């Protein structure tokens, strides 16, 4: 439902804007210049882009106004009404150049839109799978050597994990318990079980139903990282979350 409405809202806005622009077109042309005017007045042109700084994918509203012009265009967009509003979605920084030509001469104006790269946490798009969204929101936690108590630096992660799961009640979770390569396979299976169970208990205490959680210890059987270094071992001392299919 959420994803659908996120797509729907901009679409409605866009249609509305196009409709507004379309209405403008149907307005009667401005009254002809007074017959008494002995000489043509020089045209004027004004254009604004709002906002003038966006992230890629965001929309910009261009609005422009001209006087005494018969032929108005915006470079790249072609001929436009003498006065109007248009929504654009530039992917790179763009300068919109408005040119107004009339009997009295030519006037122009520019509006620049600066486009920055998309933010690190991508706005959900149609291409992000449920799995990817889960991975982005439910993050693994890590443990000290030979320990299975929840570290203080994991508490924030767990509460974020729990709130995502609370807002997605249909998702089921598998928690894998992992250990570094040192020590015995059997002892590490037990230790991995305790790590996964500790993560499960934390989620249950935060309100996630225990029936949504499956727990498997992988001990040292499925390492994330295979080098014999402390940084690699730390990667392997974890409770890892994934969607239960």
């Amino acid at each position, binding site marked *: 439902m959420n994803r659908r409405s996120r797509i729907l809202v901009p679409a409605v806005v866009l249609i509305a804007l196009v409709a507004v622009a379309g209405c403008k077109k149907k307005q009667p042309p401005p009254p002809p210049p007074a017959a008494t005017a002995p000489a043509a007045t020089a045209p004027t042109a004004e254009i604004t882009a709002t906002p003038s700084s966006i992230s890629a994918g965001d929309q910009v509203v261009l609005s422009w106004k001209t006087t005494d012009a018969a032929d108005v265009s915006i470079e790249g967009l072609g001929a436009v009404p003498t006065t109007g509003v248009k929504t654009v979605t530039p992917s790179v920084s763009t300068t919109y150049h408005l040119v107004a030509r009339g009997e009295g001469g030519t006037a122009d104006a520019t509006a620049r839109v600066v486009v920055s790269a998309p933010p690190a946490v991508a706005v959900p798009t149609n291409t992000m799978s449920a799995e990817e969204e889960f991975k982005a929101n439910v993050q693994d936690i890590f443990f000290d050597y*030979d320990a299975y108590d929840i570290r203080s630096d994991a508490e924030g992660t767990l509460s974020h994990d729990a709130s995502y799961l609370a807002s997605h009640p249909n998702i089921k979770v598998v928690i894998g318990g992992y250990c570094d390569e040192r*020590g*015995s*396979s*059997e*002892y590490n*299976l*037990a*230790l*991995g*079980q*305790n790590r996964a*169970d500790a993560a499960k208990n934390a989620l249950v205490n935060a309100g996630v139903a225990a029936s949504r959680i*499956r*727990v*498997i*210890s*992988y001990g040292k*059987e499925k390492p994330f990282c*295979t080098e014999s270094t402390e940084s690699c071992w730390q990667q392997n001392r974890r409770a890892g979350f994934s969607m239960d299919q």
Partner: protein
Amino acid sequence: MKFHSRLLPPTLLVLASLLSVPSMAQDWVRTGSNLGNERIRIAVADFKPASVDPQTPALKAVFDATLYSDLGNAGIFDLVSKSFAPQATPGSPQEINLAQWSADPVNAAMVAFGSLSTANGRLAVYGWLFDTRNTANPQVLGKQYNEAATQDMARTVAHRFADEIIYRLGGGINGIAETKIYFISSRTGSKEIWAMDYDGENQHPVTHLGSISLSPRVSPDNSRIAFASLGREGWSIRMYSLELGRMVGFPGGSAGGANQSPAWTADGNRIAFSSSRSGDPEIWIADANGSNPHRITFFKGPDVSPTWNPKTNAQLAWVSGRTGLPQIYIMDQDGSNVHRMTDGGYAVSPSWSPNGQFLTFSWNRKYGPGAPGGQDIYVMDIATMRWLQLTHDAGSNDFPSWAPDGRHIVFERQIGKGTEIWSMLADGTEQHQLTHSGNNTMPNWSWK
């Protein structure tokens, strides 16, 4: 003075005992592990080919090499180098000249000899064991074998004859030449149970489950293998029938979470294992058919890797993390009388010796960041808690398992990224690598 202080380094211990009791011929581990200091000097003649069948030379070569290797591996003999053997090959009691074998340079107290023939796809072997110094009545043993003429059977017959000799000369303890070692190998891509002969020959897969299987433990009657296997709901204790060649049920071994590290009683009636079904990994005991599982430990922290006292079937040793790093403990089968056996470090994977006197286990005593020392195999005398280090400065060693003769231990040794299976005598000598391809772990020596 017979026993050494556990606080002194082993080298000092040996020195101290030599200095203080120079006449004492035995040390405590050798005594208890059936490895006496007085080794019988034995010679093995190449067997005499008694047929001209084209199969004979190849099978005789396998037989001779296997018999010689088995007697060398036994740990109780001073085996005469074959280069000292007399020129003549005796094929029967009438053909042997005992004086040649008792004199220098052979100087053997015992000599094994015989003949081997093949005909019509059958292998016939006659073998004798003679006491070279009892010229009046030298025969200690005379055996004959008739089997299919295959390389496997030539090896098997040599194992049987070796075991007869070892039983006769080794204090009535059965030899291990016919025993098997079960282990985990990933050489087909998934961790499956494999089997091999005690000397590393005849390696072959047993299971084809395509999952991850761990901790194989063969039943005392060689009919079943209990092990742990990963499934959708975690780890289950599962059972493979060697007689039926397929999986059989073990209902008490599946309960979600981690159910692993099974251990048979010596009577084959019960299995202890670790289960997290109560919310924490604890030691449980079930009947051998998987019924009646019940819990016997009640401490927070991992409890895994039980092993029964095979003499009593009423005591267990196991690994507990209740105080932090894993330590070896022993208890009665109802969970009472808990004693901690190791005083620190990282101690795992106990195996209880067949005579009930010792534990062997893997221990890293100098545990901690930057601490020297490694994960090595130890033997501990349970009554005194005195221990002996068996491996030194060679990889990371784990998962020791006693052979049924109490003289041998099989274990896994990791060097770099590769883990292979090794065997050794229970005093740490005569270490032999048994596997050479893929990763091979968690060996378990059969009971007979």
